[in-house]
């Protein structure tokens, strides 16, 4: 087993990854920084409980996920009305559908996921699209899809109703879908 300095160095080497991870979720550099700091400190204190070098990043991400949810909960409490304007309003999608509820435009065939996932550029575009989401919408979406948090837990953390939660998730998906279509599938990729 490595000595303490090696272990600290090893933890530090994962810092850029953790920061990136936290930033994707929190969209706030200062809060992300604090969250990662807390995570590394907690990891250092819990050194004994870490067994097996290969999974160190997975272990750190596991700690980080909890810290992120805590941070989001705190943010949500501090900004009493943390909702984006028109949170429950679905009229923004009116232009996608005809009056009878059918699609205005036919949906494009995106092909197999691997065809896109093989390209680093795809993920860069995805990040660009994520950055366009309103903050709260993005947080809910990332908690759900990236952290894998169950919807009822997201509702509790943010103190919103399940219906509200589903609307935010729907909005995020619709928006990302349109953005990816425009910036990726309609262009470079068939």
């Amino acid at each position, binding site marked *: 087993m490595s000595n303490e300095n090696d272990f600290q160095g090893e933890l530090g*080497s994962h810092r850029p990854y953790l920061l990136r991870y936290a930033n994707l979720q929190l969209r706030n550099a200062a809060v992300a920084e604090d969250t990662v700091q807390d995570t590394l400190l907690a990891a250092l204190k819990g050194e004994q409980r870490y067994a097996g070098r290969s999974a160190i990043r997975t272990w750190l991400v596991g700690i980080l996920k909890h810290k992120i949810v805590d941070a989001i909960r705190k943010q949500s409490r501090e900004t009493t009305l943390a909702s984006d304007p028109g949170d429950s309003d679905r009229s923004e999608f009116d232009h996608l559908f005809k009056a009878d509820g059918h699609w205005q435009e036919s949906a494009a065939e995106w092909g197999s*996921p691997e065809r*896109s996932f093989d390209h680093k550029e795809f*993920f860069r575009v995805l990040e660009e699209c994520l950055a366009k989401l309103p903050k709260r919408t993005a947080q809910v979406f990332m908690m759900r899809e990236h952290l894998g948090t169950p919807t009822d837990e997201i509702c509790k953390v943010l103190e919103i109703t*399940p219906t509200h939660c589903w609307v935010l998730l729907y909005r995020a998906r619709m928006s990302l879908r349109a953005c990816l279509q425009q910036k990726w599938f309609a262009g470079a990729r068939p």
Partner: protein
Amino acid sequence: MIGMMSCREVSELASQGLDRKLGAGERFALGLHFRICRNCARFNRQLELLRRALQRLPDEVTGPREGVQST
């Protein structure tokens, strides 16, 4: 009227299907609609691709670091 769902309603329900357990009736209506509506079937596959992409996001962007040793 579960057999008469519009594409708009289907898109909302398909999204919810990723976030809650749909009832048997809802699943049946979705499946039926997907079979007769190419656009909604594609939409549903797009949602699935999106979900899988998000699960891979930070790894893809930073590249795996598992083997990197501190200096």
